């Protein structure tokens, strides 16, 4: 391979490996939207919060790594349950602006709390993995990204199976399809809403551990939440496979613009290039690449 194509190849590999991690965050987002039609603007803050929890648990004395990970997941699930009960359930059936604003308010709270309780400095999420990067041809991938890649694949497969085959998953899909009909068929809609949030809590907990290990945990970690919107819009808000496709697209586009465009315009293109792509995509497919088209009646 020539130098140019090597550069290109390593950009693509980086894009894919980071894109899978975006997909992991986006998964938490899609799970909530799929069942409850609530857009969680606090997804980045969820990731940050679980990063803080993981940092606290992993550095606690005598805590085994696996225990800390399970603990993080358990706390996030509990948190999501509580959140659904206290904030989102009263907003059922209210205009979409209300739900968006509630999660924005939640994001503000979550962003304000850590400096008050944990202090402002960046904390590490130490995981017992080596520092030696994986070498794929001319490209290198940090081990945590490789782990994140595998975890995302497992989650993707798991949730796809869950929604297709398991009884609970089918019930969740019924709830997402039409709440009233689902309730008439004897499905406890509110319980499934709580379940959807709990699953989003699991996804957020895992993304918090992975991203926290990669970037360190402080308030800035919540900014990864901003990356999620182009991902889910490109993929379609209610499609799990779409989240992965969107994540990979955004990761690759980001990596390519950072590699080829940034040197000419002075940096920062990777923060908005995905959004440009997203707007173009919205013009042609208003419901995303894999999203369900909604038919409205008066």
């Amino acid at each position, binding site marked *: 391979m020539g130098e140019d194509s090597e550069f290109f190849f390593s950009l693509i590999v980086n894009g894919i490996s980071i894109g899978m991690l975006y997909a992991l965050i986006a998964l938490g987002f899609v799970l909530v939207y799929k069942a409850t039609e609530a857009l969680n603007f606090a997804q980045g803050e969820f990731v940050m919060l679980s990063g803080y929890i993981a940092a606290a648990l992993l550095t606690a004395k005598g805590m085994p790594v696996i225990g800390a990970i399970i603990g993080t997941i358990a706390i996030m699930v509990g948190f999501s349950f509580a959140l659904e009960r206290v904030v989102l359930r009263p907003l059922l059936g209210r205009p979409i602006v209300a739900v968006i604003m509630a999660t*924005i308010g*939640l994001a503000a709270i979550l962003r304000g709390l850590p400096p008050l309780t944990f202090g402002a400095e960046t904390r590490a999420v130490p995981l017992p993995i080596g520092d030696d990067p994986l070498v794929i041809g001319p490209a290198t991938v940090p081990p945590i990204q490789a782990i994140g890649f595998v975890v995302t694949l497992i989650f993707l497969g798991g949730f796809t199976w869950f929604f297709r085959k398991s009884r609970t998953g089918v019930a969740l899909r019924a709830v997402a399809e039409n709440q009233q009909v689902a309730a008439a068929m004897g499905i406890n809609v509110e319980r499934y809403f709580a379940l959807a949030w709990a699953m989003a809590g699991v996804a957020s907990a895992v993304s918090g551990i992975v991203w926290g290990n990669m970037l360190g945990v402080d308030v800035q970690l919540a900014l990864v939440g901003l990356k999620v919107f182009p991902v889910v819009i490109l993929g379609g808000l209610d499609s799990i496979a779409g989240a992965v496709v969107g994540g990979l697209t955004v990761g690759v586009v980001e990596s390519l613009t950072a590699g080829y465009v940034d040197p000419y315009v002075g940096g920062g293109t990777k923060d908005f290039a995905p959004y440009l792509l997203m707007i173009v995509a919205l013009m042609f497919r208003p419901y995303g690449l894999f999203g369900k088209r909604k038919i409205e009646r008066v």
Partner: protein
Amino acid sequence: MFHRETGVFKTSYASDMALYPLPIARGTVTALLVLFIVIVPLVFGEYYLSIINLVLISIVGALGLNILVGYTGQISIGHGAFMSVGAYTAANLAVRAGLPFWITLPAGGLMAAIVGAVVGIPSLRIKGLYLAIATLAGQLIIEWIINHVPWISGGTQASIQVPRPSLFGFEMKTQGALYFFLLFFALIAIVAALNLVRSRIGRAFVAIRDQDIAAEIIGIDIFRYKLIAFAISSFYAGVCGVLYTYYFGIANYEQFQLGVSIEYLAMIIIGGLGSVLGSILGAAFVALLPLVIRTVMENVGGFFFAANEMATVVSSMRLVIFGALIIVFLVLEPEGLNRLWRNIRNYFRVWPFSY
């Protein structure tokens, strides 16, 4: 506003739509005007006037956003960026061409209106959540462009110093002078909004908010009115940005980041969606909140936090209280301060003979 009528005696639509529902309302409005034009500047000193000035600027922005979100039902998370468009347009015109404020201000508003309408174009095809994210994209892209194009941002640190506004050779240096400057525009904004929402355009907005397909069927050109809503709303935002620029004496993109968009959304939610009075109350509430928190924390916070951490504590407290207020209002009083005010009025309407 404050009057207590004994019943509803309106016999025509014209009287129902009137700006002054009763002859006494004229008196109330005059009294309020006297309060704000004569008494407020006499009573308050420079410091308090500088705070009231901030409230006045916020009122303009909140009114604009409420026209879009509260009346037309189109959400925008990009209003901070629209403000920055107005701010930089005015700052560039004022510094490079030396134009006075009565040219730069409408120019800033118009520029913001054009940009806002462009960002609003996707609203034809997409709505709700997708539109929210599209406007968020607008916010980030505009922010990036201003930050990376030195021709707009004035180069270093992306900020432009502007001279104080002056009228007939009188330069508005003091907060007292700025107060009248800002009050004038806030009043225009309020009256314009009140009139807009009772016009054909305003009622078309409400129809689109309530059911856009139904609105289209009864003959409202949705695309046109959605774009008008975006343009008017961004015009307000642009003017608000210009006012900020003249108030601070500097245009800086950091004053108009995503957080500001969210702050203005909070204003109209706390104040009350789809209400002019609500926008005013919400703007005052949110603009005053950080000052209250700072005062309280300076006096009481010393017991809980070390003095050198106080700056972080105050800004974090602000975020937490801010978020909590949004949620509390959404869950408990969705119609905001405007509704609370109406409840109080209705209580006193028949008081003390409530039966």
